[in-house]
Each structure stands twice: as C-alpha cells, then as structure tokens.
C-alpha cells in the first residue's frame, strides 16, 4: 500500500506573517486525520494549500492519482488539478455558502456534482440526489427549494450531500460541524463515520472541537502558530499529551 497523500515541508506566508510552516505528514487510504489548534494556528491555511485553493510558498503535496499514480498537485496543470477537485476530492467549507450554489435548487446542487463527472440520465440523477438528501435528513419535498430558504444546519447538510454524492476518495473538511446544533452535529458525525467506513474514504478534518476529533479521527495533528507541535494516535494525543501546548488545550476542556 502507498500513502494517498504525502505532504513535505509545506510553508505558506502572508507577507511577514506565517500561515503554516514546515508541515510534513502522510495520509493513508481509509484514514481520518484530525487537525486541531486554536483560532489563527494555521489550520485553514494548511487545508487550503492541500486542496489546491491556495498556493504554498514551498513544499510538495504528492497525491496518489487513480490514473497516473503519485503526482505533485502543486506542479500539475490547473485543469488537471480542477479535475481532481471534481472527481477525487471533496471540500466541505466551514460556511455552507462557500460550498453551495445558493440560486440552484437543493436537488440541483447535488445533481450538478454528478453531472460534472458525466452523469446524464435525469431520472437517475434526481433519484440519487433524493437519496442523498434523505441521508443528510433533508425531506424529499424540499428537493426543489433553494438553499437560501434553508436553515444554516440544513445548508451544511446539503453541502455534505453535494460533496459526497460522487464518492470521492479524499474529503477535506474545515470545521464541518461548526455552526450546527448538537443533534444535527451528532447525525453528521455518525454519517461521516459510516461513509468513511463503507466507502473507504480518507478525510482531513479541521476543527477546534476535541470531542469531534475524538469520535472521528484515527490520527491527530496539533497546530500552534502555523506549526505542527504534536501528532499521533488521536486517543493517545488526547489522553497522554506530550507537548505543553497540547496539555493546555486538553486541560482547558471538561470532557473529551
């Protein structure tokens, strides 16, 4: 087996300010990697660099493509990278408005991703969209409504359906359960876990919520000031943290 993603010495600065620095890690097929750290620690910057939304200053992001094996996504052509983003990768944004088309119906939002990878049969597309709306607990009769008519929680669930409908191999999530009420969050955690297991998905999940990574992530990276200060098995890092910053992070929450 080879890693799905191999990241080496990834650095991104905003002028003199560090976004993320010297990040190195591997992600293996079927693994869920959590990235935690306080606000401003560089989690979103790192995720954006990995997903090709932001160009890092230095480093490499080697992805095991289906067709051509290991390729550095930072040096591949823009159309190639965009194709990866449409087929193999999914990106669940913190704010659903960044991941949805607000003036297209819920069914259309899901169907659009299918059509982008070649689906043409209207009946099948609609049936699949309807099935996925059900899986994220959006009633079938809302299929023709626009997301702008949905609550924030429903929008987030729709974004997840839109992203996962094409069966990507790698899912990037930036605070996916952030603005959601607890019961919706629980359903999403359950859904994400089941998908990872059943579809053999790999995922990188950025969050500041240690309870979320405890339940979702196999491995954990802890970031501080743009750098990874500790990494390891999720439960080991949370129960026996080695770095001063991780100890502070863990001790500042009641129950993780």
């Amino acid at each position: 087996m080879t890693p799905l993603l191999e990241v080496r010495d990834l650095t991104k600065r905003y002028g003199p300010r560090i976004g993320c620095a010297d990040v190195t890690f591997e992600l293996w097929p079927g693994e869920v990697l959590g990235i935690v750290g306080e606000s401003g620690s560089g989690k979103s910057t790192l995720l954006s660099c990995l997903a090709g939304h932001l160009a890092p200053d230095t480093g490499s992001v080697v992805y095991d493509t289906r067709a051509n094996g290991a390729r550095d996504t930072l040096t591949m052509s823009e159309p190639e990278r965009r194709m990866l983003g449409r087929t193999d990768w999914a990106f669940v944004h913190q704010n659903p408005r960044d991941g949805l088309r607000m003036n297209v119906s819920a069914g259309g939002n899901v169907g659009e991703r299918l059509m982008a990878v070649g689906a043409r049969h209207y009946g099948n597309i609609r049936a699949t969209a309807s099935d996925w709306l059900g899986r994220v607990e959006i009633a079938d009769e809302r299929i023709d409504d626009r997301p702008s008519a949905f609550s924030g929680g429903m929008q987030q669930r729709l974004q997840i359906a839109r992203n996962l409908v094409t069966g990507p191999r790698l899912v990037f999530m930036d605070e996916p359960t952030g603005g959601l009420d607890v019961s919706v969050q629980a359903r999403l955690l359950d859904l994400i876990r089941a998908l990872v297991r059943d579809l053999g998905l790999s995922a990188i999940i950025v969050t500041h919520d240690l309870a979320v990574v405890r339940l979702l992530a196999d491995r954990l990276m802890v970031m501080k000031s743009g750098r990874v200060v500790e990494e390891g098995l999720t439960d080991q890092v949370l129960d026996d943290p080695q770095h001063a910053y991780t100890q502070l992070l863990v001790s500042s929450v009641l129950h993780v």
Partner: protein
Amino acid sequence: MIQVENVSKQFTLHNQGGAALEVMRGAQLSVAPGECVALVGASGAGKSTLMRMIYGNYLAASGAIRVGALDVVTARPREIIALRREVLGYVSQFLRVVPRVPTRDVVAEPLLALGRPAGEARARAEALLARLNIPPALWELSPLTFSGGEQQRVNIARGFAHEYPALLLDEPTASLDAANRGTVLALIEEAKARGAAIVGIFHDEEARARVCDREVDVSGFAPGAS
C-alpha cells in the same frame, strides 16, 4: 501473545512547572494464549496506566511491549490502528460512542470495521446484547441515555463482538449484579478457551479466582520498589 519488557512511564506536567511524575519502572509481564493475568495493586499503583500503554493509549517512556509481532512502543499509528482492529481488544471503564448511534450498531461496529457482512455483525451484536440482558426495546436507542450498568454491559458486548486474540479488560464487572457478572465471567472463560490472551483488572476477588490464572502486582513496578 502479550510481552511487556522493562517498561517505564513518566508524565511531564508542562503546565505545572514541568513536574516529572515517574509512575513506573521496569515493568514486566508475559501473557500466553489462553491465559488470563490479573493486574493487582492499590488504587493509583498503575494498573490502568500499564493497560493503557499496552493498548498504545499512553506512550511508554522506554522498554518494549509486544502484542503478537508488533512492538507497540515503537509502532507507527497506523500499525496500532490495524492491531486494534484485528488483534487487540480493550474494554475500558467508560463507554464512548458517537451520539445517536443505536446500541446494536455500536456493538456491531468492530465487526463492520473488519468488513464483515452487516447481517452477520448485527446478529452477533444481538446475541451478545441478549446474553447481557439488554432488552431488545433498547437496541434501537443510543446507549448514551442508559444507566451506568447498562452502558458497561454494552461496552462489554462491543469488546467481545470480534474474537480478538488479545484482550484488555479494565474492571469489566465493576457495577454489575450477580447474574450479569456471571455472564461476563463466562464470556472471559470462552475467550480463554478459544486461545485469547487476557489482561484484566478486577476489584472483585471472587471474579479473579474464577477466571485468572495468575496475578501480577504492579506495586512491584513502582520507581524505587526494588
């Protein structure tokens, strides 16, 4: 099957002046297939700490901990993940689950993670839940709303769903009535009979006498004990 050699452990509390808390030195333990070894010693002696190090939940400071062919002390995370999926089970003192997942699925999860057919995994989960006297009416509900004793039995059912070659049990009989304690001890005896190597912490002396072949007093591994 489980081999602990010269293991030491310390906690460095960076946010309490960097105090180094040395809790274990020179720990030794060897458990053969089909054997159950009890860890004993006063509260705070390090029983759970040793068990957590075997599971890879706590990092050992030095020494070796072999489970099957893998040295947990030097293994990479993904090797430990595979070990936990296939070889090494752990029944911790507290149940930790994703909210809203039905009890039946919580118990079936280790089998699903191994790629077993859903039907087979559910049937096994139901059989264990029934044996542990969790009424079928509760199987559809999340165990998070259950009583402490019920949660513990769900935890035990999950820990025995897959027939792990090695098992760690941290006070599995603690809050159970006589009938359920009997069932748990029977599950342990069955696991031994099929060749599982088991490390257990039991406060209940009778339980220890019934299922354990040997006792290892972890007080002997306290720094300065020898």
